[in-house]
């Protein structure tokens, strides 16, 4: 009976993953198609990859995109985590509700509104548009999701744990680095990854606040829609996907190996 249930649940998960990856497989398959659209497969070719490698402008755009995504996700995770710690301290229901509402405003406002407001904001202070304005804006709209991901972990942290640490004479910094941060780190990682997603997906805000030759992949893809998106973009997405997949799997197993070593080490040390 138990075994039976087991396989059903796995089947469910397989289905979820199949759906999640179906459109991506679709894109990748067509990146090898001759012709120039995603209607019918016209035979195998690598020409779109060739076009991509010859397109220096596109490569610069990809680098820009990854740089902005990583940097903004990192900084917003930092700020958002610190913010979540502050919100968690707030016990007054009204204050807490107000801060959380303020926190979520950028999530509910459509991108055009945020983009246009940020544009007005930057130009009013005569800040030249480009890398820095894009970075600032991305940090800005990524912070709420980080807070949303970190906060539940904080609320789950039991007060007794903190009291115990305090009774043992832990300083503020020790409390933070030894007790709080390790406990909420799953939330922090979740926030970081979601921030990364927000950054990579954003078109409208970036469009408004960019300038001076700086462009990201989303802006490029959306503005190509009128002319029809070429399969070069499919090839690019395919490559980025494989690269990210390799990175994730590689990172995971290196970590596993490290942990194994650490555990062994600790064991032998104990003996």
């Amino acid at each position, binding site marked *: 009976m138990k075994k039976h249930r087991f396989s059903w649940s796995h089947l469910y998960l397989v289905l979820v993953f199949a759906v999640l990856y179906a459109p991506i497989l679709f894109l990748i398959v067509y990146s090898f198609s001759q012709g120039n659209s995603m209607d019918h497969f016209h035979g195998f070719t690598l020409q779109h990859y060739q076009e991509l490698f010859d397109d220096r402008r596109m490569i610069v755009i990809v680098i820009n995109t990854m740089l902005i995504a990583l940097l903004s996700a990192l900084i917003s995770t930092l700020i958002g985590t610190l913010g979540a710690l*502050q919100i968690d301290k707030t*016990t007054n229901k009204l204050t807490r509700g107000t801060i959380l509402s303020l926190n979520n405003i950028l999530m509910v406002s459509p991108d055009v509104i945020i983009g246009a407001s940020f544009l007005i904001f930057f130009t009013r202070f005569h800040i030249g548009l480009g890398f820095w304005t894009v970075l600032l804006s991305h940090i800005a709209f990524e912070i709420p999701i980080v807070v949303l991901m970190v906060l539940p972990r904080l609320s789950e942290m039991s007060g007794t744990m903190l009291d115990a640490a305090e009774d043992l004479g832990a300083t503020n910094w020790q409390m933070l680095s030894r007790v709080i941060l390790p406990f909420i780190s799953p939330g922090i990682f979740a926030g970081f*990854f979601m921030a990364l*997603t927000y950054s990579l997906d954003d078109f409208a805000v970036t469009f408004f606040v960019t300038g001076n030759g700086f462009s990201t992949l989303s802006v490029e893809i959306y503005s190509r829609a009128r002319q029809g998106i070429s399969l070069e973009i499919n090839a690019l997405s395919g490559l980025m996907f494989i690269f990210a997949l390799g990175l994730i799997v590689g990172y995971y197993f290196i970590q596993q190996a490290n942990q194994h070593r650490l555990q062994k080490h600790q064991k032998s040390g104990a003996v």
Partner: protein
Amino acid sequence: MPHRHTNWLYGIPYWLWIGLFVIAPVALIIYQSFFNIDSHFTLNNYATYFHSGTYLQMTVNSVWYALLVTFFTLLISYPAAYIMSHLKHRDLWLLLIILPTWINILLKAYAFIGIFSQAGIANQFLTLIGIGPRQLLFTKSSFLFVATYIQIPFMILPIYNAILDLSPSYVNASRDLGATNWQTFWRVIWPLTLPGVKSGIQAVFIPSLSLFMLTRLIGGNKIITLGTAIEEHFLTTMNWGMGSTIGVVLIIAMVIIMIFTNSDKPTKGDRPS
């Protein structure tokens, strides 16, 4: 009440962010909402909004479809998160859930057009199992499907984290006390994972209120939401006043929802222990 020792200085960047990137733009949006297209001060935008059947209908649509999307996302994500949390390489599987979100959403939408089209894979499958080709695109279900698809990772992540936290001893204790699986779930697992569920609901529902691209791309503009109207006022008619007014309404709607979902914060240490 245990007092916390996180110094308020750590929070400065966050408060700066709230001031510069939240309060300032919101003030600007509210300010703009009182001006008409000829930049004259007016309350007409709000009057138009509340007197026009079109806008009220759009508001109902927005809330209704955001609710549906959130509901389906939760329905699919909770079991998935639960099953994943019991797998061996669970952290890897979680990363693999996030990975598809890094591919541009417009491209994924185009891929869905290809999959759902008359000659697409979905219809070939339907033909194969004898149902025959169906009109899949431009239906409410296809729109809901794709919108749910986009949101699933945002729901799975916080729920997964909450389930991982769940100490197996609670579950075991519940079973030892003779609770059925359902009782264990409903009385023990669900309440303890509620913070994660709530954060997932917020992460999905709030952005879903202002969906606009998918309603056009996949839904063929069969469903018009407030996002569509804002897009139009900012980018076509350039009537930023009216666009901002709708933005203000969205923000107010969000605040109301926050008040409803954010019930009492659990007091520290009152867990069963």
